[in-house]
């Protein structure tokens, strides 16, 4: 499997993280998204007319949306699947709010920044309420006691919210949820989401 990848993309990271947790190997094809805008080059547009990343290539299969790619990677891993569609829709909304706020603050994307952040805060509050209820039932993850595709789809843009000027200080349940994901065997980091250094010295 070849992943056309950009190291700072939350959507590409979803795919890298999912594959890592599943123990699947990806061949990364690094795209110069910034500053060269290679995702809009003729070659990349031929592969994905939308001109976005990530793009996954597996033999004849070409997938151009991170939600489709996550479904594809987990097609033989039912333990990661559930009622995924609402969560994947939420993940797409998070990419439009927190994700765009981040691209605005880092790479100067033309975004209504106040609206993007306000929408992000609304979604974070909803997620926090949900995760709080999950914890009342003794669950660490969005859909139960074990991690699922839903968690991996939502985790990147939530964790990277501070990159776009949205604080995560006052979401205790989301913080514990993010920590639970960062503790998973096989977890990989990306810039802005570092590993748990405390785990290097388990007690």
């Amino acid at each position, binding site marked *: 499997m070849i992943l056309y990848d*950009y*190291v*700072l993309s939350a959507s590409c990271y979803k795919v890298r993280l999912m594959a890592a947790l599943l123990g699947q190997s990806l061949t990364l094809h*690094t*795209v*110069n998204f*910034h*500053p*060269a805008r*290679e995702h809009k080059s003729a070659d990349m547009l031929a592969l994905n007319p939308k001109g976005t990343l990530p793009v996954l290539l597996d033999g004849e299969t070409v997938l151009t949306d991170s939600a489709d790619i996550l479904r594809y990677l987990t097609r033989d891993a039912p333990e990661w699947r559930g009622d995924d569609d609402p969560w994947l829709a939420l993940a797409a909304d998070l990419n439009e709010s927190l994700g765009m706020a981040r691209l605005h*603050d*880092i*790479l*100067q994307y033309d975004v209504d920044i106040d609206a993007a952040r306000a929408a992000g805060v609304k979604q974070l509050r909803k997620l926090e309420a949900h995760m709080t209820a999950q914890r009342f039932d003794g669950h660490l993850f969005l859909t139960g006691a074990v991690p699922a595709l839903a968690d991996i789809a939502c985790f990147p843009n939530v964790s990277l919210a*501070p*990159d776009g*000027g949205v604080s995560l200080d006052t979401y205790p349940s989301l913080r514990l949820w993010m920590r639970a994901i960062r503790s998973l065997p096989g977890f990989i980091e990306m*810039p*802005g989401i*570092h*590993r748990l*250094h405390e785990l*290097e010295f388990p007690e």
Partner: protein
Amino acid sequence: MSRSINDYWYPVGLLSGIDAPHATLLLGADITVGRTHSAYWVTDAAGKALPTIKRFGHLWTCPGTPMDDLFTIPEADTAGRQLVDVGSVRVKCSPLRAVENFLDIAHFPFVHTDILGAEPHTEVARYNVDIREDANEVWATKVKFFQPQAAKSAEGGITTEYMYRVASPTCAVLYKTCPPRPGEWDVITLFVQPLNEEWCEVWPWMALYDDDSTMAEMVSFQQLIFMQDRSILENQIPTKLPLDPGMEVPTQADLTSIAYRRWLKKIGYTYGAQLVAA
């Protein structure tokens, strides 16, 4: 000796990226950067043209009276190097904090874990630092650090040697030993455009000997490293760089930072600095 902050050269864009007029900030003032055919230009808020220089793949400007030429990096001109336009990243921090972080190696094991450093190899051996009066630059030499994966070609860990050079208050250059070419130095720079005292646009640029990596891979590597630093830089208190001793606690590993702060004070460059302990 002391000159105005307006009299230095600052990076304002990548030559390969300047096209339609682009409004930005320099030292808190509005400027516009653009290109008409092959002529690059910068204007201030009143529409007055500012002086420009094209160098290191970037366009540079000076909002005051440039007192001398922009510094040069002779090593970067040697043949066979890949010149890497890394692009820019905006950071909510003092431009001086961004430069100081670039001069620091002690954070490698914790911030760039398993790439530029790793526990337990955290020791920073003594190195040399001097303020070169002739060139008006700060230099750190014989800086050595253990790196788990210093380069793609490196098998296992090696000790890498660095030299650091502060060539202007918001621009630093590092020279790093280059495994495929013993005796040569890779050149990695950090050019900082101060948007205001607490907000900057950072333009890393590199001149590397690397025949294995694609341009996209070299860009990606540097963006990865710098974005790991960004989450540190946006969370230092205070946002501005304290120049007076007392507020922070340097050790021997921080000799470059000490010299940088001392030099800024000496030349009177206090934009982005905090002078009195709050």
